[in-house]
């Protein structure tokens, strides 16, 4: 059920379209779920655009800007939830007036308050959370004001020093003033395809632990291989305890940067089997997520693609070698009619198997819609797939509620338990439209365990930590604390694992990003528990 408007998430995205079919118009926006005030519930950041042909606002007119909404969740006496968001942008000192693309979240200065990195068509912004409800723009001082066109970014501790580094996925070299006109075969003007433009190098920034970052792209061996990056997911794909980086490229081979454990990375995309379709063709990678879809203890990948291509499932063998099982899984063919963007593995029904949702919307005019005089004929339905537990999925969109019947130009999607009721909700960011807040109404029918994994001393979310939830029968569900993945969006860093009908407590094993492993026994279920590094055994 969509509760965006009634809960106060009212920002309408402005893509700035002027009839010139500027390519950048169809790429944003993302969104973020993050607990800005450490009150235990997820607040929201919504990305905003602006007119592309009028970079400066008219006198007396304020350009649109990205907005922060504080979650004023109340739990009623009967256990029901009342969601209410308050726009706190003005009070936060937050001023994001560029042409926004997306957001990444992470506590880069280890002060226990989550910071925001905003990607843009133009310089990106790093906004330091002052832990008092306000933010300070430290983009320039931190050295992360990448001037490229960036879409997705991720905070990760790639060198295991306890400080979050930053990977920024950069897209294309494009400027409105030299925008190339493109046409359909019949001569109608339309949005271009990305191969008209050249890609820009992505960036890896190492955290200097003093509020600044150093661009280590070249030193890390990542400067010479890049594509038009749209999606970024970080995880330990080969099980060596070090975080790797997967980059979904638009129309070019995807990259799998395997951490070499010495500050450098090696692109294993091709040999790993995740660069191309099984056919050998590069697809238009957009959104991406990593998760243990078959519950065998490793990170599998899901990448959303263009209409006609179908989305891709890459199943990991545990050593970082993957097999594309898009067709066999049912995820490929069922998505062929859609252009997928935001996505995530999440346990929709808390049955212990990761399901997936994709937010869709075309990037070139859908002729059938145009003929009905649709003013923005790119919209498509969202897709919801349920994991059948044998690496096959069934499409259950029609059972997902009214929101799944809506056709919209979906882009970003942030996933998280916004009402703290034990299941994953979804915040959808629509291009040139209003956001949707899809409240999960079935997950809480099953049991679950919620974990916040924090480090010492300030209690920062330990992005990249792996969690094994050991069930009564001895089998483990492996999940990961992360805020990245999807498309241009940031999600809930807490781990929420579905337990089906299981009752009692669970044993939890945590592999921290620094390499240490700890266990907690008798962790209660059906509630959130904070596990602090050093507090287990």
């Amino acid at each position: 059920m969509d509760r965006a408007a009634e809960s106060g998430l009212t920002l309408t995205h402005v893509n700035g379209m002027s009839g010139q079919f500027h390519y950048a118009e169809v790429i944003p926006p993302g969104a973020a779920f993050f607990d800005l005030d450490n009150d235990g519930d997820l607040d929201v950041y919504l990305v905003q655009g602006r007119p592309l042909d009028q970079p400066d606002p008219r006198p007396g007119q304020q350009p649109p800007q990205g907005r922060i909404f504080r979650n004023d969740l109340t739990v009623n006496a009967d256990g029901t939830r009342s969601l209410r968001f308050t726009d706190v942008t003005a009070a936060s000192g937050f001023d994001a007036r560029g042409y926004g693309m997306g957001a990444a979240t992470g506590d880069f200065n280890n002060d226990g308050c989550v910071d925001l990195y905003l990607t843009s068509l133009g310089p990106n912004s790093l906004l330091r959370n002052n832990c008092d409800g306000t933010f300070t723009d430290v983009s320039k001082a931190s050295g992360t004001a990448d001037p490229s066109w960036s879409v997705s970014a991720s905070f990760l501790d790639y060198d295991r020093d306890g400080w979050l580094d930053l990977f920024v996925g950069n897209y294309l070299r494009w400027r409105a003033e030299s925008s190339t006109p493109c046409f359909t075969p019949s001569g109608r003007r339309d949005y271009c395809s990305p191969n008209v433009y050249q890609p820009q190098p992505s960036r890896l920034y190492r955290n200097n632990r003093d509020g600044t970052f150093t661009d280590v792209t070249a030193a890390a061996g990542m400067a010479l291989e890049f594509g038009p990056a749209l999606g970024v997911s970080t995880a330990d794909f080969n099980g060596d305890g070090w975080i790797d980086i997967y980059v979904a490229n638009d129309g070019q081979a995807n990259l799998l940067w395997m951490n070499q454990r010495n500050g450098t990375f090696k692109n294993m995309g091709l040999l790993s089997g995740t660069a191309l379709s099984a056919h050998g063709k590069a697809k238009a990678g957009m959104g991406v997520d990593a998760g243990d879809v078959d519950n065998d203890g490793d990170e599998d990948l899901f990448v959303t693609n263009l209409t006609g291509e179908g989305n891709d499932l890459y199943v990991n063998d545990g050593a970082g070698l993957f097999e594309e099982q898009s067709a066999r899984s049912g995820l490929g063919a069922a998505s062929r009619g859609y252009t997928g963007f935001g996505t995530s593995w999440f346990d929709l029904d808390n049955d212990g198997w990761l399901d997936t949702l994709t937010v869709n919307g075309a990037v070139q005019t859908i002729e059938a819609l145009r003929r009905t005089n649709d003013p923005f004929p790119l919209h498509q339905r969202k897709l919801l797939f349920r994991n059948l537990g044998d690496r096959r999925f069934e499409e259950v969109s029609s059972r997902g509620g009214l929101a799944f019947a809506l056709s919209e130009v979906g882009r970003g999607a942030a996933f998280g338990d916004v009402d703290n009721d034990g299941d994953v909700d979804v915040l959808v960011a629509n291009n040139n439209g209003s956001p949707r807040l899809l409240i999960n109404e079935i997950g809480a029918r099953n049991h679950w365990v919620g974990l916040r994994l924090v480090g010492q001393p300030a209690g920062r979310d330990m992005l990249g930590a792996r969690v094994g939830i050991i069930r009564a029968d001895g089998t483990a569900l492996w999940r990961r604390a992360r805020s990245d993945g999807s498309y241009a969006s940031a999600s809930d860093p807490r781990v929420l694992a579905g337990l089906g009908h299981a009752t009692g407590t669970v044993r939890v094993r945590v592999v921290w990003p620094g390499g240490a492993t700890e266990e907690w026994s008798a962790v209660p279920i059906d509630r959130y528990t904070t596990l602090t590094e050093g507090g287990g055994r």
Partner: protein
Amino acid sequence: MRRVAWALPVLASALLVGGGCTSQPDRTASDTTATEAVDTPLPPVALPDLSPMEAPVGQQMAERHQALVTMVAAAGTPAADLARAYGEVGRLLMAADYFDAAEPYLLHAQALAPNETRWPYYLGHAYMAQAAPAKAVTSFQRVLRLQPADLATLVWLGNLHLDQGEPQLAEPLFSRALTVQPRMVAALFGLGRAALARREFARAADQLEQVLAADPRASIAHYPLALAYRGLGDTAKAEAHLRQQGSVEVGPPDPLMVELRGLLRGAVAEEARGIRALDSRDFHAAVQSFRKAVDLAPENPSLHHKLGTALSLAGDTNAAVEQFQEAVRLSPSFAQAHYSLGVLLAGSNRYPEAIERLSTAVRHQPDYIEARLQLAEALRQVGQLERSLGQYRELLAIDPRVADARFGYAMTLVALERYPEALGAFREGARLYPDQPRFAEAGGRLEVALRGGR
């Protein structure tokens, strides 16, 4: 003739409601008035709004549609002729990527000429383009009932089954194609992919090796072949094939779809044909297509530039310069045209003029890599070494992958007698591009020279 009788009211009703070739609301199948001759009601045909199309394309559609209307109205039109008339409109719409609009025309054609394979074949492709695999399968199966050995259909249907996760249904189709044409690359490729999908790696490797033996240009096959070798545990072979991996596709001989690409009139269609001709290095054909495009859209600077490029590649430099100049006249900030003029001028050693053109290109498009590279080279040629160095530096900041820029940068340092820096640049190049011996060779020569005090 019975079929002609029902076709008339269907078409007439569509025309009446929509007012001819203008924007029309979607019609439903229930509008169909006469269906006795077919098992399922046929959707009404309706030409989409032609106004957003280029004038020649819109006119072509309107003419073809009018021919159909006339034929429907005429008494005694043979069903085969009427089918062709419906089908031709459908084909035009398909060529214009109006797949959903093409569908009813092709369905009418199919109903009128049930033994004709073309119409279900095109329908199959129209359904594939609309991501309707089940309907595409039905259409291709219909073709195969009529013509069991149709190679293109066997391959497309096999590919569809592979995409659906049904390798067991795909394999007999590819095998059947191979009985007709034993070394058919697309069928071998399909069998290789099917084996890979079944995790039968040895068989996949065998089939995919046969693909490359039959057509070494089919570089797309290296990737699945590498995955097959990876599955067999032979990482060395897998990596060897990954190094050769490319994007040259493997498709069946497909005359009907090739025909479709030549149907549309209009500048955009001619441009597309010109680009395809350039890709296949048929420069004279490219000149012809781009010239037609320029005739249709003389104010389009991009078309003049493409014509100039094709003329230059065909060896007619003077005519090429004229086209580039016309492009610049029409669009003074058109960086690509300035660049092309700069390249031609540099090619005839007219460096000062070339530098002016290339500088203009870079000014209008600062991230134009090729222009910066040419500009850096031209500046080096005329001894403006510091400026050249600056251009190389800028270029590498934009795209660090360009080996020519790194090499040129090092050579310019040599020319500036900044030998230690040059040596460092050659070494860096040798590290970054191990497959390019020129860095190590030049660095080695410089080292020897430095040791000898030269």
